[in-house]
C-alpha cells in the first residue's frame, strides 16, 4: 500500500463529522450518567425562572398604559366596521351576487364571472348568507388596513435602507409568532368583539403585502429607475409614476396574499367569539359534533376563499381587458332581481337547501364510523402505538405487552444500541462516516423518545447543526435562544411541540417527496396532484380540522393528520419544481454519457434539486408550526395547547411566552434549513 492510498483511506475529519461525533458523545454521556444525574433528563424546576410571570407583569403594565388609546382606536374603527357590516348584510343578496358576478366578468371574462356566480350562489344556498356577509365585512375592513400597513412598511423599507433590517425582522416576527398568541393581548387591549379579529388579521395579513412591495420595488429594472431620475422626476414622482406602476404585478400578488391571509385570520379569530360569522358557525357545529353542518360551513369558507383568491390572482396577471358594460349589465340584472323580489316580498336570503344533505352526511357518517369503527380505530391505534408514541416517549416506555405484545427490557436496549452502532460502523467503513454517526444518534433518539431527550443533548444538537449550517454565529444564537426556552420552564411543552411537528414534517417529507417525485416524472400524476395542492393551499387553516375530526375524533392523531394535510403542499411543489428544472444541457450531457433515466434522476436531477427541496422542507416546517397551534383546538399537547389555554384564561404572560417559544423554534428551524440550502446552492455554483 502506498502512502497516497493511506492518505485517501483515512477518514477526513470534516466539519459535519466533527459535529456529529460531538453530538454522539454528548448523547452517550447523558445516557450513561442517567442513573447518577437525573437532572440531565428532566431539567430541575428549581433552575427555571418564572419567565411567563415576568412577561405577564411587564405586558400588563404596557398594555394598561396604551389601553385607552387602543380603546379609542377600537371605537373609531367600529364605525367603518359597522358600516361595512350594515352595507353587506343590509344589501339584498341579488345585488351582492350581481356585483360579484359582474366584477368577475370585468376582471376575467366569463370564467371568473361563472366562478363568482357559482361560489356566492353556493354560499346563498347553504343558508349561511348572513354569517358569510359578517365574515366578508371583517375582510372588507381589515384588508385595506393591512394593505396600508403592509404597503407603508414596504415603502419605508425601500426608502430608508437604515431601518430595513429592523423592519424585516419585525415582519419575520409578525409571521412566525402564532396568531393565537397575540389574540390574548389584543383581547385585553380591545375587549371582546370583532375589532380584535380585525386588528389580528391586519397584523397577520400585512407582512405578505410588505414583502411583495419590497420585492416588487427591488426588482424594478435598474435602468428603468435611472431613466426616471434622468427624466427629471422628483423622488415622489419616481415612486408614484415609475417604480410603483412598474412593480404593479408583484404588488398585486401581495394584495392577493393579503386577502387570503386576512380571510384565514378572520376565521381563526372566530374562536374568541362575539361576532356571528362563519368561522364561529364552524366552531360551534364542530363542538356539537354536527359534522355535516360543520362541513357545510367549511365548504362555504372554501368557496369564499377560492372566489377571492382566483379573482385577485387574475388582477396580478397581465391584464386582458373585458367589457365593463357587460359587467355593469350583470350588476344591473342583480339590482333588477332585487327589486322584483322586494316587490314580491321575498327579499330575505333563502333558507339553506343543504339542510337535508348535511343531515344525511351526519347520518351516513355515523353509519360509516359505526360500520368501520374497528378499521378506523385500527389505523389510529396502529399509528399511535407503533409510530407516534415510540417517537414521543421512546421504545423503552412505549413497548408494552398491552400494545406490542412484549415488554421492553434493558437487554433489548443494548441489542438496539449494538445494532445501531454496527450499522453506523458499516456506513462509516463504506465512506459515509457522517451518515454512520447520524444512524447511531437516531438509534439513541428512538430508544429515548423525543419528549424525554436530555436537554444537554438537544442544545448540543442544535449548536452542532447551527455550526454546520451557518458557522459559529448561528450556532451561538440558536443555542442561546433555545436556552431561554429551557430556563423559562416551557421546555417540556417545547419538546412535545418538536415531537409532534417533527413527526408531521418527517411524514410530509417522505410522502410529499414521493408525490413530488411522481409528479416530476409523470405529467399525468401532476395533473391530479396539482389541483389538490391548489385546493389545500387555498383552504383556511381552520377547515382542515373538520374532515379529520369526522373520522378520527379529538386526539393527537387527528392533529397529526391535520398538520400533515396542510404542511405537505410545499414539499410536493418544491420537490417537483427542483426535479424538473434541471438545465437541459446537463440532461443532454448525462444522456450522451449513457445514463439510464433512473441514474439521471439519482445522480443528476436530485443533486441539482437539493437546494430547492431543502427550501420546500423549510416551508413545510413553518407550515407545520403554524398548524400546530390551530390543531391545539382538537387536542395536542405542548406549546400550542398552552397558547390556546392562555387565550381562554386571558393569561397574557403564558400566551405571549408560549407564542415566543414557538416563534423561537420556528426561527431556529428556518435558519438551520436555510443555511443548509444556501450551502448546497453555493456548492452547485447557483448563487
Amino acid at each position, binding site marked *: 500500500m502506498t502512502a497516497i492510498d493511506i492518505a485517501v483511506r483515512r477518514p477526513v475529519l470534516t466539519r459535519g463529522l466533527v459535529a456529529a461525533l460531538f453530538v454522539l458523545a454528548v448523547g452517550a454521556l447523558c445516557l450513561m450518567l442517567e442513573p447518577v444525574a437525573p437532572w440531565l433528563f428532566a431539567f430541575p424546576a428549581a433552575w427555571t425562572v418564572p419567565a411567563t410571570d415576568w412577561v405577564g407583569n411587564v405586558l400588563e403594565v404596557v398594555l394598561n398604559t396604551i389601553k385607552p388609546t387602543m380603546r379609542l382606536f377600537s371605537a373609531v374603527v367600529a364605525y367603518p366596521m359597522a358600516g361595512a357590516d350594515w352595507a353587506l348584510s343590509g344589501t339584498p343578496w341579488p345585488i351582492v351576487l350581481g356585483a360579484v358576478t359582474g366584477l368577475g366578468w370585468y376582471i376575467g371574462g366569463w370564467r371568473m364571472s361563472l366562478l363568482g356566480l357559482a361560489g356566492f350562489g353556493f354560499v346563498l344556498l347553504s343558508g349561511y348568507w348572513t354569517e358569510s356577509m359578517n365574515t366578508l365585512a371583517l375582510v372588507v375592513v381589515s384588508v385595506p388596513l393591512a394593505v396600508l400597513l403592509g404597503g407603508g412598511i414596504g415603502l419605508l423599507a425601500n426608502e430608508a435602507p437604515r431601518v430595513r433590517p429592523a423592519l424585516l425582522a419585525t415582519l419575520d416576527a409578525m409571521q412566525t409568532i402564532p396568531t393565537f398568541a397575540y389574540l390574548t393581548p389584543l383581547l385585553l387591549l380591545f375587549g371582546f368583539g370583532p375589532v380584535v379579529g380585525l386588528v389580528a388579521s391586519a397584523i397577520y395579513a400585512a407582512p405578505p403585502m410588505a414583502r411583495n412591495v419590497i420585492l416588487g420595488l427591488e426588482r424594478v*429594472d435598474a*435602468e428603468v429607475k*435611472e*431613466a*426616471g431620475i*434622468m427624466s*427629471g*422626476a422628483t423622488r415622489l414622482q419616481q415612486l408614484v409614476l415609475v417604480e410603483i406602476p*412598474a412593480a404593479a404585478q408583484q404588488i398585486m400578488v401581495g394584495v392577493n396574499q393579503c386577502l387570503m391571509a386576512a380571510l384565514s385570520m378572520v376565521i381563526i379569530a372566530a374562536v374568541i367569539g362575539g361576532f356571528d360569522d362563519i368561522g364561529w358557525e364552524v366552531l360551534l357545529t364542530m363542538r356539537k359534533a354536527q359534522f355535516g353542518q360543520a362541513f357545510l360551513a367549511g365548504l362555504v369558507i372554501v368557496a369564499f376563499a377560492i372566489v377571492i383568491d382566483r379573482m385577485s390572482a387574475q388582477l396580478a396577471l397581465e391584464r386582458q381587458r373585458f367589457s365593463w358594460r357587460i359587467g355593469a349589465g350583470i350588476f344591473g340584472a342583480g339590482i333588477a332581481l332585487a327589486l322584483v323580489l322586494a316587490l314580491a316580498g321575498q327579499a330575505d336570503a333563502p333558507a339553506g337547501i343543504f339542510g337535508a344533505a348535511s343531515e344525511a352526511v351526519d347520518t351516513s357518517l355515523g353509519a360509516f364510523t359505526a360500520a368501520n369503527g374497528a378499521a378506523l380505530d385500527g389505523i389510529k391505534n396502529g399509528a399511535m402505538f407503533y409510530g407516534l408514541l415510540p417517537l414521543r416517549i421512546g421504545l423503552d416506555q412505549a413497548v408494552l405487552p398491552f400494545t406490542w405484545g412484549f415488554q421492553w427490557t434493558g437487554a433489548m436496549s443494548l441489542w438496539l444500541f449494538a445494532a445501531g452502532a454496527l450499522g453506523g460502523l458499516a456506513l462509516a467503513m463504506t465512506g459515509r462516516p457522517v451518515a454512520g454517526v447520524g444512524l447511531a444518534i437516531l438509534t439513541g433518539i428512538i430508544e429515548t423518545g423525543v419528549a424525554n431527550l436530555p436537554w444537554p443533548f438537544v442544545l448540543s444538537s442544535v449548536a452542532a447543526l447551527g455550526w454546520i449550517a451557518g458557522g459559529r454565529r448561528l450556532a451561538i444564537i440558536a443555542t442561546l435562544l433555545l436556552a431561554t426556552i429551557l430556563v423559562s420552564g416551557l421546555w417540556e411543552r417545547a419538546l412535545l411541540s418538536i415531537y409532534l411537528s417533527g413527526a408531521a414534517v418527517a411524514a410530509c417529507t417522505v410522502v410529499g417527496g414521493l408525490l413530488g417525485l411522481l409528479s416530476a416524472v409523470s405529467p399525468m400524476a401532476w395533473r391530479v396532484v396539482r389541483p389538490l395542492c391548489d385546493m389545500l393551499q387555498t383552504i383556511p387553516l381552520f377547515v382542515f380540522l373538520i374532515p379529520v375530526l369526522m373520522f378520527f375524533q379529538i386526539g393527537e392523531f387527528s392533529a397529526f393528520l391535520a398538520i400533515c394535510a396542510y404542511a405537505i403542499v410545499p414539499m410536493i411543489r418544491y420537490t417537483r419544481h427542483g426535479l424538473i428544472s434541471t438545465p437541459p444541457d446537463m440532461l443532454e450531457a448525462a444522456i450522451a454519457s449513457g445514463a439510464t433515466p433512473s441514474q439521471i434522476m439519482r445522480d443528476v436531477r436530485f443533486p441539482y434539486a437539493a437546494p430547492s427541496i431543502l427550501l420546500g422542507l423549510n416551508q413545510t416546517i413553518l407550515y407545520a408550526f403554524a398548524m400546530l397551534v390551530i390543531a391545539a383546538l382538537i387536542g395536542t399537547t405542548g406549546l400550542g395547547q398552552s397558547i390556546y389555554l392562555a387565550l381562554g384564561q386571558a393569561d397574557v404572560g403564558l400566551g405571549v411566552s408560549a407564542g415566543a417559544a414557538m416563534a423561537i423554534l420556528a426561527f431556529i428551524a428556518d435558519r438551520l434549513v436555510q443555511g443548509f440550502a444556501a450551502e448546497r446552492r453555493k456548492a452547485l455554483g447557483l448563487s
Partner: protein
Amino acid sequence: MSETAAISVRGLWQVFGAQPGPAFQRASADHDTPEAIAETLKAQGHIPAVRDANFDVAPGELFVVMGLSGSGKSTLIRGISRLVEPTAGKVEIEGEDVLSASTKRMTELRRSKIGMVFQHFGLFPHLSVIDNVAFPLKVGGMSRAERHAKARPILDMVGLQGRENAYPRELSGGQRQRVGIARSLAGDCSVWFLDEPFSALDPLIRRQLQDEFLDIRKRLNTTIVFITHDITEALKLADRIAIMRDGRIVQIGTPAEIVLKPVDDYVREFSRDVARGRHAKVGSVMRQDTGDLGTDDPGLRPDMTLEDALASCMKLYQPVPVRDDTGALLGAVYPQDLAKALQVERV
C-alpha cells in the same frame, strides 16, 4: 479649465466599498499619485472604479468613451450625470458645477438640459410609446395635450410614427431603443449621454441606428458623451475617443491618433483588427522632407484616407502577369484592382 468646454471633468474619482469617502480622504492625504492612491484603496478592500478622470468635451463634440466591461466607463457616465455620487472631483456642465448642485437643481437640469439613453433601454413598461417619450415633460408639469404635441415630431424623427400607442413589450429591440432615444430628446437637451445604446442590438440594426444617430446629431448639434465597448463603433462615430482601462483613462485622441499612435500595448491591441487605412489620413504619414520626388503625381491630398491614397497610387502602375505552375500566362492583374479589392466594404 477650458472656458469654452461644454463638459469639463477634473480629478473625478468613484470609489465603492464600505467607507469610500473617508478611505479616499486618508489615501489621498498619504499619497500623491493616482496609482498610489488606487493601490492603497484596493489594499483596504475598496474598489476604485474610476480613478482621476480628466477631460473636456467641446460644445457640439461627440466624445466616445471606450473600454471593456469592468473598465469603469458606465460608472464614469453615472458619475458625470450624478446617478451615483462621485467620491471626489469636479464636473462642470456648461460652466455649472453639477456635483454641488442641489437635488432640486439637478432635477431641473435633467428636465431641461441633460438627456440619457440606456443600454437596455430603460423603458417604462406600464406606459405607451408616446407616454414614455413625453415622460420628462410630464414630470416637468406640462399638460397632456401639450406634451403629446411636442412628443409627436420627435417620434417622427426616430421613425416611430404610427406606433404611438404601442407598449414597450410589443416593440422589437431596435424600436425600443428608438423610443429610448426619443425620450432622451424630449426635454430639448443640449448635453446627451448615451450608455452603450446599441450594444444590445443585433449587428444589422446596430449599423442602421448608428447612421440614424449620426443624422440626428447633425440636426441637433448637441454635446454628446457616448459609451461603447466596440472599437469599430467608436472609430465610426467619434470626434474624439477616450480609452479606459481599470478605471483609468489611458488615452484621449482622435480616431486616427488612437489607431496610429497608441500609447501602449493595451490600446494597440484594440486597434489591431481595425483597417487603419480607412481611419488614417495622408497627412499622418506625410514627411516634410520632400527628397527626390519622382515624376508620378497620383493627386494626393493631406485629408485623403490611406486607402484612397493607395488606390490612387496603384493607378500609376502597369498591369502585371499571372501564371500557372508551368509558367504559362493565364491573365493579368491591374494594381488598382488589388487596392480596391482589399478595401473593406464601407460601413
